């Protein structure tokens, strides 16, 4: 790839990925509201049976928003997404596998 092609690609990426300042404030506002909802859910006794799925979902939404918009993965090259998601997937698998092995299986076995 020539330098001029790299320059053109960088400019295109920048134009595509450069969100406005107002957009970043909006994302931060949504993240703050989700955090408040998480804490509220924690204190509402009626929601206790569904606490785990609700909190995990809200946490995943916050995680995705920071990665996509603040870390610019949504606008950036798919190479970065692939590299990061590879590590994230293995890490998630490790956590889930160990929790199942040490927390849930012993309970099932009695």
């Amino acid at each position: 790839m020539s330098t001029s092609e790299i320059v053109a690609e960088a400019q295109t990426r920048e134009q595509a990925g450069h969100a406005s300042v107002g957009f970043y404030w909006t994302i931060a506002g949504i993240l703050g509201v989700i955090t408040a909802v998480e804490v509220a859910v924690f204190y509402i006794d009626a929601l206790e049976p569904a606490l785990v799925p609700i909190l995990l979902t809200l946490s995943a939404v916050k995680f995705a928003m920071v990665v996509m918009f603040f870390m610019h993965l949504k606008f950036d090259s798919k190479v970065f997404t692939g590299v990061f998601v590879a590590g994230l997937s293995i890490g998630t698998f490790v956590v889930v596998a160990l929790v199942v092995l040490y927390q849930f299986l012993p309970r099932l076995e009695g």
Partner: protein
Amino acid sequence: MSETAVTAVVHDHGPASTGLPTWKVGFWTFLGSECLFFASLISTYMVFKGASTTGPFPEEILNIPLTSLSTFVLLMSSLAMVLALDGVQRGKRKLASFWLAMVIVLGGTFLGFQVYEFNHFVHEGLTISRNVFGSSFFVLTGFHGAHVTVGIIWLTVLFIMSLRGKLAPGDALKVEIAGLYWHFVDIVWIIIFTLVYLLQ
């Protein structure tokens, strides 16, 4: 970004065969490996959760309102970080310096909350050697705090560079990579806050 600035970035950091800056490819790879590092600490905490035979136990000692506030502070520091990068990219030096300073202040505030929490726990009898909850909790949150500290030092260097006028739009990649690190620290805390504090 001017052609000169982009060329400078390309020459300084060298494009990989993908045409992407090698520094950025390398840093995303590093962040992928950091996912594994924190996954091992989080899974250790989860495995030993509820295995303590002596107190203090998580439900007795964790302070949700205080940690919610520190979580909000760290989230807002991510906003300040992205605004600092925006300032550097647009060549607005004073704005970039202001937002970099805000990231440092908010990161320092988060660390202050963590120091207070650790100090409070020790006074309540929870130390790293007291029980398995204490051991896994302090190792997990302690390593996260160490990452925040490294981020603050890194951003302080960038802040000084910005004050001295050494952060031109052509240097935006330096700030962007520091920003990636800072946002990563933020997303790790998002996970810790949910798994450790809210799902007791």
